[in-house]
């Protein structure tokens, strides 16, 4: 399984903070995004947003990053701390 977490505006728009996805048929972050986007039209729009940031096991990565079972994948908007 892959643990997926969402933060900030994205978490509110999805109305979801965390979910588990089977790692079967998922090789990269792009595959995971496609699977999540299939849920409905709103999720499709949100996961097609190119400004979305991705972290795998707390490190920033891009869409090509390889995934394996047990990974934690986070999706979130550009950061605004400080």
């Amino acid at each position: 399984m892959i643990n997926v977490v969402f933060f900030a505006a994205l978490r509110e728009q999805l109305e979801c903070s965390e979910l588990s996805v089977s790692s079967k048929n998922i090789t990269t972050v792009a595959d995971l995004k496609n699977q999540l986007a299939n849920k409905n039209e709103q999720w499709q729009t949100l996961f097609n947003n190119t400004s979305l940031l991705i972290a795998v096991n707390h490190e920033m990565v891009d869409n090509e990053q390889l995934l394996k079972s047990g990974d934690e994948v986070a999706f979130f908007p550009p950061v605004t701390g400080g």
Partner: protein
Amino acid sequence: MNQEISIQINDFSLADEITLLEQNNASDGAIVTFTGRVRNHNNGMDVSGLTLEHYPGMTEKSLAKIINTAKTRWNIGRVKVIHRIGELDIGEQIVFVGVTSKHRHDAFAANEFIMDFLKVQAPFWKKERTEQGEAWLDAKATDDAKAQKW
């Protein structure tokens, strides 16, 4: 636990933080500190407060990485980064960066570097409370530009 980083709900004392940077540290002649506070306005709108969310675990790692990069680029002594989370009112302190060094240049540069990268890499998000309701802040292109100049 990394003593250089603190993610906390509670406020911090600037005087206490400076004391910690100074104590038993006679070799460093320079201390540069930055404190960020909640402004009462943003993009022309009155702001009554903020809520700060973060990604526990990644936040600490991301800040540690920024601090380590600063240590490889400048000759610095002690570093402390504090970032508050949760609900904050106008005028409250949000963030603190303190750096010591033998001479001022390293502490000035490293402090600004840490702050510039915290702004674009550390997973914090601000939600503003205004008369029109609550809204998540958009990232600023000028912050990206500042980080890129390093």
